[in-house]
């Protein structure tokens, strides 16, 4: 795993060099921080599981970015219109079979690998954005609740409890039945918005009705996603706010907001980061299951969960290859984030890091 360490180190020093160019003296001022980063890179490179997870995440990221562009079949062209025999073609693996799609086709005769490239983009975008939008909401509420205490704490945490008790699936169903029409209206009238979201999901602008459906499950997920963060952050803040350095910051004249963001947040963020990576995995699966249940986009959008649910009608005789392939993609995507989160927890936990630090010293001496 040494090449990973060397690679990460190179990236760190590239970044440091860039900062040095912008403001001379940066490297000298931040030598401690750079050392810390190097240590993290080292710890990460020593964890095979974490490296594997990072690799998977990196590959899904690349596929999500370029997928819709390199996909060789447009998802809106149904080949069965030309020939009914294209429906659910079985996998065609060389050398025994050539000329047909490698892993077969779906209900409409579309190449399943080409479709999965669109699907990965949609899943990736949804999961990342749900967590990236949901987490800050929870973090801010948790910070305020934990720091202010008293009535504010009670009020925020009881609301959090209500949301935790609220079944996310039911909310998603409710949203899916009400919201898409309204969002569709907004997308219809606003071409910039339409182009933005179409580009984000790698779909055609003409599919704005489906994009509206995607956005509504998105919103439903964001709304039920923050309570976990509010709880975990509040718990950590309760222990941090009693620390003398918070009182010292008060004496330095800082406002409550500066104390929260400069002093409290950096000290509670590591468990949150770990939770976020795990949550991206959960969100991927949650979004897929929502569209599996038909709450998400409809034809012709090749959403992974939706394609699986469609294939379910012909399962297992004709469509097992579709279910297996797309299922494995979802599994691997979720697994990648989980493995990465696991490694991240080891790196960010000061207790395990001490041990890694020690090992690094020993290895350097050798």
């Amino acid at each position, binding site marked *: 795993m040494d090449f990973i360490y060397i690679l990460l180190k190179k990236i760190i020093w590239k970044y440091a060099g860039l900062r040095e160019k912008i403001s001379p003296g940066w490297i000298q*001022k931040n030598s401690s921080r750079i050392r810390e980063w190097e240590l993290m890179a080292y710890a990460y490179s020593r964890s095979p599981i974490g490296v594997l997870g990072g690799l998977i995440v990196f590959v899904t990221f690349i596929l999500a970015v370029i997928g819709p562009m390199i996909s060789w079949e447009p998802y809106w062209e149904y080949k069965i219109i030309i020939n009914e025999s294209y429906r659910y073609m079985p996998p065609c693996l060389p050398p025994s079979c050539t000329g047909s799609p490698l892993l077969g086709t779906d209900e409409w005769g579309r190449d399943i690998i080409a479709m999965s490239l669109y699907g990965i983009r949609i899943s990736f975008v949804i999961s990342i954005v749900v967590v990236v939008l949901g987490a800050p909401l929870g973090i801010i509420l948790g910070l305020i609740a934990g720091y202010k205490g008293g009535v504010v704490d009670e009020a925020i945490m009881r609301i959090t409890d209500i949301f935790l008790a609220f079944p996310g699936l039911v909310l998603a169903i409710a949203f899916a039945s009400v919201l898409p029409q309204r969002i569709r209206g907004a997308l219809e009238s606003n071409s910039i918005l339409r182009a933005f979201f179409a580009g984000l999901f790698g779909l055609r602008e003409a599919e704005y009705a489906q994009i509206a459906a995607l956005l509504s499950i998105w919103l439903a997920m964001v709304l039920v996603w923050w309570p976990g963060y509010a709880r975990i952050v509040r718990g950590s803040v309760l222990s941090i706010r009693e*620390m*003398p*350095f918070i*009182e*010292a910051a*008060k*004496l330095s*004249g800082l406002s409550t907001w500066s104390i929260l963001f*400069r002093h409290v947040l950096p000290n509670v963020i590591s468990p949150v980061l770990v939770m976020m990576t795990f949550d991206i995995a959960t969100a991927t699966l949650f979004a897929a299951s929502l569209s599996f249940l038909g709450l998400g986009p409809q034809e012709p959008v090749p959403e992974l969960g939706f394609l699986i649910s469609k294939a379910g009608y012909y399962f297992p005789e004709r469509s097992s290859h579709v279910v297996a392939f797309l299922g494995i993609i979802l599994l691997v995507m979720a697994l990648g984030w989980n493995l990465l989160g696991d490694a991240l927890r080891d790196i960010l936990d000061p207790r395990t890091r001490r041990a890694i630090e020690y090992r690094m010293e020993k290895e350097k001496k050798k």
Partner: protein
Amino acid sequence: MSENILLEVKDLKKHFRVRGSLTKKVRAVDGVNFYIKRGETLGFVGESGCGKTTLGRLVLKLIEPTSGKIFFEGKDITKAKGRELKEYWRNAQMVFQDPHTSLNPKMTIASILLEPIRFYKIDVGDEEEFLAKQMELVGLGREHLYRYPHELSGGQKQRVAILRAIITRPKFIVLDEPTSALDVSVQAQILELLKDLQRKFSLTYMFISHDISVVKYMSNRMAVMYLGKIVELGPSDPLFENPLHPYTKFLLAAVPIPDPKIARSREKILIKGEPPSPINPPPGCRFHPRCPFAMDKCRREEPPLIEVERDRFVACWLYASK
């Protein structure tokens, strides 16, 4: 006289509510009066739980007093809020007991020190040059500026904490057991540094410690606290030589003497029992259950803090007649 007084505290009380009870209260600080003159060090000594740390935090308004008044330079700051409070904090700072927790582990020393400077908009010219110069004041160097607290030793961290407290050039500093988390050899250095800084910047200290010999070394006057009250207050040397309150006598008897010959010849008096709970302090004098000189009056009436000699105050019925 009043011109000379920097900080005055009148009948200050802090009662903490006990969780899950409406009527029970912890009387952490229960009616404390004192003043601190400009440039002097007033020491507070007492066993753990006697309210000395709470008193320090009260004086700085880090916690709200239940009742009583605090005057700083003649101005009532008891109800100070917002800008007024920040202005007070520019002049009154604190050094905390444990340097390992009083510095944010995620910030470099430089950014910790820059916070008060930036907030109070103190013009220092080049920040780095200024900080490097300031670091010399506490015996640290420029090379420490960009380190994280965990890269420094306990003594170095406490030096940084002290520097943070004096960087806005305050007039008054509360030192809350600044040496008790440190090694003995480092303790002496820190005490010397504090004395040195006091001379240089004509600082006024409120020095809190459980170690009576350290308090005596640092302070011009000292106050002995027991269960949220001051039981004896006076100039350090006479108080140390000739303690009046029985509790002070006990405390002094517990100070180790380096010479075993003298130590053996010393009259041994041992204090009985534990300090009572501050939730439910005994009626009358709070010390009477442990006091060998307790009289009937002690059980019934609480002794006031009276001046028995010039500048020497004691709260004990034994001296009430004088």
